[in-house]
């Protein structure tokens, strides 16, 4: 079992659902984002998902897009980010760090180097939403060699055979996108009817031995409750960023306490 999956299993002994909270690295400044990550870990979130900003984040909605663009007003560097995250991982050993970004900045940094350096800094998983598994042979090998997990995404419209393929290949955890569209509130929210979340997660469970994380559009306690017993991790992204933008760290912590009490 991968170290990420093992961590989830262990934590799940005492918690009905784990929390993964998203932070944009460098927003509004590098220092403030690191401070916010440290605070979240201190407050006991199980995971932080750190997004290394990219100029063209096509899977993200307005809140995260704006934060990424703001963060990119300063020069950001992958290597610096990794070593800063490594320090956090050391300081807060009860939480784990997953790095999310888009392909291009990571591709420029070097995929082998990324997997190696991430592992050295105790980052346990990588999420690249624009890298499909079919194009990811080298990336998968690099992750495997360094004992970290590439996290794959499935969605409510992923065809059954592909869902089976992705789910059975998942290690660490499988990121189950809860609905169509981009992250957070946006003008593009899906209007189409989709299968109920329960049916969707049950279908994934048939194929996946890895734990399940659910994200996209979570912002209420009832949604988290609905996931208990069906998923292992609830991923909080834009809602947390919106709270942070509204009232800083305190407002963010309040949201987390409301959702995960």
């Amino acid at each position, binding site marked *: 079992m991968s170290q990420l999956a093992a961590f989830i299993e262990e934590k799940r002994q005492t918690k009905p659902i784990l929390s993964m909270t998203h932070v944009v690295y460098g927003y509004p400044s590098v220092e403030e984002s690191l401070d916010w990550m440290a605070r979240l870990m201190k407050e006991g979130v199980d995971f932080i998902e750190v997004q290394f900003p990219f100029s063209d984040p*096509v*899977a993200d909605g307005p809140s995260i897009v704006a934060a990424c663009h703001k963060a990119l007003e300063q020069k950001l560097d992958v290597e610096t980010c990794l070593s800063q995250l490594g320090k956090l991982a050391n300081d807060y050993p009860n939480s784990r760090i997953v790095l999310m970004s888009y*392909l*291009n900045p990571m591709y*420029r*940094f070097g995929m082998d180097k990324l997997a190696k350096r991430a592992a050295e800094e105790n980052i346990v998983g990588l999420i690249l*939403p624009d890298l499909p598994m079919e194009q990811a042979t080298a990336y998968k090998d690099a992750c495997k060699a360094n004992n970290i997990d590439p996290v794959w995404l499935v*969605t409510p419209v992923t*065809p059954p055979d592909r869902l089976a393929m992705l789910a059975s290949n998942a290690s660490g955890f499988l990121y189950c996108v809860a609905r169509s569209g981009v992250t957070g509130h946006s003008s593009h929210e899906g*209007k189409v009817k989709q299968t109920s979340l329960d049916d969707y997660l049950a279908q994934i469970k048939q194929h996946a031995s890895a734990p399940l994380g659910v994200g996209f559009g979570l912002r209420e306690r009832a949604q988290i409750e609905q996931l208990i017993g069906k998923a292992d991790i609830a991923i909080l992204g834009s809602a947390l960023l919106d709270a942070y933008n509204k009232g800083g760290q305190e407002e963010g912590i309040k949201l987390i306490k409301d959702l995960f009490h």
Partner: protein
Amino acid sequence: MQSENGFYGQYGGSYIPEILYSSQQQILHAFEEAKNDPEFLAELNKQWQQFSGRPTPLTFCANLTEHFGGAQIYLKREDLNHSGAHKMNNVIGQGLLVKRMGKKRVIAETGAGQHGIATALVAARLGLECTIYMGAKDIERQYPNVFWMKQLGATVVPVTTGAQTLRDALDEALRDWSSSHEESHYLIGTSCGCAPFPEMVAYFQSVIGNEVREQSVAQFGQFPDRLYACVGGGSNACGLFLPFLDDKEVEMVGVEAGGKGLELGEHSIRLSHNLGQPGIAQGFATMFLQDEAGQLQETHSIAAGLDYVGVSPIIAHLTEIGRIQMTYAMDDDVVAACTLLLKKEGIIPALESSHALAGAFKDAPNLPKDTKIVINLSGRGDKDIFNVAKAVQDETFPQFLTDYLAAYPTTQDHKGETA
């Protein structure tokens, strides 16, 4: 040009969020079926002819030829398409494909607004709902096009993120598609994006080169010696070049936007002089203008339709293997080329197409007199009236605008504008 699993050498591919996988596959299969269906092709040809006015002429430019004293200069008149640009070839093709797939709505990104108008035209004709994403800065630069899109019934959404230009509009169109994929088709305007878009757009645009093959033989008894096309996203270049790919004696020159200079941010040169670097973004791998950290950068051109940060993976590949030669034209040379065509031949070229003119005009005097060159005049220049007036420092234009505004009714109608 057939791809290998969506790839052209190391470029192309499909790098999209998982949510779009099914829709991408649907387009892949629908296109594969359609291009082998005689009924679809017959309808496509009929619409090209009856709606867009194809075939477009190949026009010999006697005055320009004499002026330069070198190569014989011909123009492929894509400016004579309905909507005034080659964009129509593609939107008709994809529009028919949308009907075939049974979708009711199209989304498109636009830079100069040419693709936006073309999409809005075809959507109106085919009874499709239409949403156009356009950078807020491009809307400022190209308002007349926005005006027509709205009159045609399209919803024009200003994109205010990032640099507020074509790249941001493309991101936003992809985001819309991520939520609306079941009922909407993303009608990409150029031969970029995830597979099969580069191949599909190039296929629909290849009508340009296919006509030139027949027209050149009919008019001067041989294929052209050299072809010139401007390269923004690369669709008009693909359209002219690809049908000649196997005719090794036909040389091909692509002209990028040199803008104001070669500093990052001042130009849109991705394929020569080591200014672009390989990258993967916006759904595909190609040469992008980016910094060393892999962040895509801002671009510039006097022609809004050329300032895209990436380029067709087909053109990137053909450049890499040496089949296409790439050069660039600076803003000033472009305006000079535009002016020369106006004066010598009585044709008003788009500033985008004027890049191809500028590239060809540089070579023409040095080429033997029996050399036949064909320049793709991809669009007409009426839309550039404000920018050209400014560039040639027309003295009367500001007064005209002042007078016009003074007489303009003050209660403006904002219907159809959305945010």
